[in-house]
């Protein structure tokens, strides 16, 4: 039984293919169209998922869509009525968009998929009806169904779906062993933690739905001196974990902009213009919003525990990509385990809708998994893979010399290059689903170099120097290097065992013994703080001594695990700097041709393209 899941027409369009409950393939449209956060109907992503499976659209039994578009339209209409006469221009613009495309989503889906049929739709197994899941139900499904838990609280938090902006559910197995979600309660538009975060992202001069990571990365540079102001004036946090925005300060109900003059007046400064200098004020605002967001998320988590009494927590929705908040939840409890869907944003809704159709509509069970703590995401390596012949063609086409190596020789050569301070493009196997590069489409470097953070940000990725870079670490040695541990009842790693963080969605402090003291009086001001070494792996240690950790287990990714092991043998450090294989403003590379293009346009020194290794002359 094949189910195609689709997320489209908002941002981060994506497709996912679920076969008999197994997540067979998933990919974001942006990787194929090369348009960041592409919202268009994900035809290329659908074709890719089907190609991975070796099937065609004719073989698909059901089609699931990640939200109920007409329910969303209801919210827009209700909002326009409530705000009338303000926001008429925005409303008209929205209605034009809806009248043109979105209102016709059911027929758009049908027409697009019939257009992919090799038989012109004559032999479609699908009956033409689309299974529409609510937006937050799709998020919740993407969080619970592939999680390692049979029983869990499920919390979803984002900007807005149809009406809900946060929802709470409980996931469990029914008496036939079929996983089920029971939805308990929700917080509705316009009260939205995601929109609060996005409004401040915009205020700091970053792009909404893209710059949130930047604000999160900027936060540790500042002091949260505006946190109480934000709690007093912008968002009220209630004792039961719910919250309410002061709608007088936000304009997203009536305008394309998130806020207006009143918002700026409260903060005492106008918004930062993009590319303008980042001052201490901006860092402090970022720190304050992050602090309030973490406090709000903790309130939601507390509520989830009170309402469900479960020991494990699953998270999804855009706010679940806030890995600083996720790390704090894991450390502070009360849940024994926290598992975050790696494609927690709207792309993951495609997968959630397909899984919801399989389990809820069709009553299907989860497929058998390898071991008790294994999730159903296949390491998030759900995109296309390319063989060495295709890789060789891409290199030859670009006029690049290369050598073909077997896996042990490739690992040895790349480990040697990394030890010599070279930056290596690592293009291996299937592409990741979700915003993080996990060893399939990564740029790797030696984390021991205090210069490497600057080199990678400025000369390889052409992005802001303050952006932190993340470490990959051998799973079995994570606790030697990071304060990332579970508790007594944890499934994903107990005390002394470290904790599974395969999707780079948990931030943890670098282990005390690995940290370096910064001498009093030597701390520079502002963004220059990133250049002060703070640990034995300074290139991937943030200014507050934390790191966004990816654990790599041999079962999950043998080749990447072997590379980390080879680097550890040479250096004693089982850690590599791992950042996504792209440059600023572009999606992560998908094909060998994308990777070669990125390699040539940047100061990446070597490219491991499948089993082929290409090098540039030394810098």
């Amino acid at each position: 039984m094949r189910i195609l899941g689709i997320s489209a027409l908002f941002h981060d369009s994506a497709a996912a293919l679920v076969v008999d409950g197994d997540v067979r393939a998933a990919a974001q449209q942006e990787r194929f169209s090369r348009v960041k956060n592409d919202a268009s109907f994900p035809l290329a992503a659908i074709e890719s998922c089907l190609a991975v499976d070796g099937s065609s659209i004719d073989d698909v039994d059901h089609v699931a869509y990640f939200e109920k578009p007409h329910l969303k339209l209801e919210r827009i209409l209700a909002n326009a009525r409530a705000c009338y006469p303000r926001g008429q221009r925005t409303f008209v613009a929205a209605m034009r968009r809806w009248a043109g495309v979105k209102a016709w989503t059911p027929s758009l889906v049908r027409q697009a998929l019939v257009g992919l049929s090799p038989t012109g739709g004559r032999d479609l197994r699908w009956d033409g009806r689309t299974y529409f899941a609510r937006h937050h139900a799709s998020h919740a499904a993407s969080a619970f169904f592939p999680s390692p838990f049979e029983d869990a609280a499920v919390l979803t938090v984002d900007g807005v779906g149809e009406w809900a902006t946060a929802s709470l559910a409980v996931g469990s197995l029914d008496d036939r062993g079929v996983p089920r979600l029971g939805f308990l309660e929700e917080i509705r538009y316009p009260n939205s933690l995601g929109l609060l975060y996005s409004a401040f992202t915009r205020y700091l001069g970053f792009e909404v739905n893209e710059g949130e990571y930047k604000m999160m990365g900027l936060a540790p540079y500042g002091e949260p001196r505006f946190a109480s102001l934000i709690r007093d004036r912008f968002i009220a946090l209630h004792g039961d974990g719910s919250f309410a925005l002061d709608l007088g300060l936000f304009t997203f109900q009536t305008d394309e902009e998130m806020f207006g003059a009143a918002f700026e007046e409260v903060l005492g400064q106008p918004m930062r213009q993009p590319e303008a200098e980042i001052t201490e004020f901006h860092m402090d605002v970022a720190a304050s919003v992050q602090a309030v967001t973490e406090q709000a998320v903790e309130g939601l988590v507390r509520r989830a525990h009170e309402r469900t009494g479960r020991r494990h927590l699953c998270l999804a929705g855009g706010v679940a990509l806030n890995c600083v908040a996720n790390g704090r939840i894991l450390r502070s409890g009360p849940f024994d385990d926290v598992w975050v869907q790696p494609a927690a944003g709207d792309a993951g809704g495609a997968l959630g809708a397909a899984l919801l159709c399989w389990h809820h509509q069709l009553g299907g069970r989860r497929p058998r998994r390898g071991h008790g703590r294994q999730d159903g995401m296949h390491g998030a390596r759900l995109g296309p893979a390319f063989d060495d012949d295709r890789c060789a063609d891409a290199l030859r086409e670009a006029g690049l010399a290369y050598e073909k190596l077997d896996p042990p020789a490739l690992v040895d050569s790349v480990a040697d290059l990394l030890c010599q301070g070279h930056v290596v493009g690592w293009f291996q196997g299937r592409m990741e689903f979700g915003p993080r590069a996990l060893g399939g489409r990564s740029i790797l470097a030696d984390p021991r170099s205090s210069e490497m953070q600057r080199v990678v940000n400025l000369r390889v990725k052409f992005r802001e120097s303050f952006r932190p870079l993340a470490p990959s670490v051998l799973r079995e040695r994570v606790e030697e290097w990071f304060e990332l541990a579970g508790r007594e009842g944890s499934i994903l790693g107990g005390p002394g065992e470290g904790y599974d963080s395969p999707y780079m969605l948990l931030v943890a402090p670098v282990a005390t013994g690995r940290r370096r003291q910064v001498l009093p009086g030597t701390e520079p001001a502002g963004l220059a703080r990133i250049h002060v070494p703070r640990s034995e792996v300074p290139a991937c240690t943030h200014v507050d001594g934390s790191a966004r950790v990816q654990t790599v287990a041999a079962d999950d990714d043998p080749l990447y695990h072997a590379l980390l092991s080879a680097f550890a043998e040479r250096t004693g450090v089982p850690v590599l700097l791992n950042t996504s294989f792209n440059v600023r403003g572009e999606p992560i590379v998908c094909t060998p041709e994308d990777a070669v293009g990125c390699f040539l346009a940047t100061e990446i020194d070597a490219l491991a393209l499948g089993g082929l290794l290409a090098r540039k002359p030394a810098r």
Partner: protein
Amino acid sequence: MTRIRSTLARLAFTALFHVLGRTRRPGAVPATASTWREVPPETGPFEAY
């Protein structure tokens, strides 16, 4: 054509419903009250509404 007519009718009905002010109103929640709400009952799985 039947489907288009049906969708248009549903949209018109929705608009009318809201103009008559008989549904949820954003921004009407006092800042001090809990904003948790019951999850509305599911419409049919093949309904876009």
